[in-house]
């Protein structure tokens, strides 16, 4: 295990690299909403955060979500607020996007589209991987 030495003079040196991995569609299960809440709470701790969407997790970012008739909260606008919390590294996996016939224009926030190989590299660099 890697040891983190606290450096009070330089808070950025203490920041851990944390990656949230979202692989579930919204609304069918509670995973997506829970993940979003954890990301927002975690943002207070000023860590080096990245959020990845792959498999059905891609659907969380789909434009035009309307849950009125479903009578559950439409939490998709909160993804646009992530930037204000300095959560700016949003990634989608290209293969998952293609499999679902989606392109970045279908998504409600700007994201970086990466191949599975590039995402695997990013995963390797993380201190913590949190899966939802």
């Amino acid at each position, binding site marked *: *295990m890697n040891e983190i030495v606290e450096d009070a003079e330089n808070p950025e040196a203490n920041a851990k690299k944390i990656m949230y*991995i979202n692989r579930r569609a919204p609304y069918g299960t509670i995973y997506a909403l829970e993940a979003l809440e954890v990301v927002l709470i975690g943002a207070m701790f000023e860590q080096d955060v990245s959020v990845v969407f*792959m498999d059905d997790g891609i659907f969380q970012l789909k434009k035009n979500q309307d849950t009125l008739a479903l009578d559950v909260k439409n939490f998709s606008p909160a993804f646009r607020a992530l930037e204000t919390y300095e959560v700016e590294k949003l990634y989608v996996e290209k293969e998952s996007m293609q499999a679902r016939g989606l392109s970045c224009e279908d998504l409600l926030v700007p994201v970086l589209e990466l191949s599975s190989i590039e995402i*695997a590299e990013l*995963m390797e660099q993380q201190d913590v991987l949190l*899966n939802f």
Partner: protein
Amino acid sequence: MLHTVNKSPFEKTSLDTCLRLVRTGAVILLIEDAVYAATKNTVIEAKIKRALTQNRIYVLGPDLDARGLQDSEIIDGIEVVDYGGFVDLAGEHRNVQSWF
């Protein structure tokens, strides 16, 4: 990195996603319903054999036993580990990615 998979490959895509995201040399451990992926003569077998050329694959013995799966039914090249082996694998890697 150690990758664990716990879903049956016949029901979920967790194994496919894992195989797409593993880097060469990473280690895969099949647990719970994912142990069915380790068995011979399935539609998954070719995929597993391809992965074995780049990655070590382990399967959790107690989960095989519980499902009536014997060593002779497991694809050659996959190693069976017990709970102690699971702990060792986790300890050998900086991170564990769980595909569930």
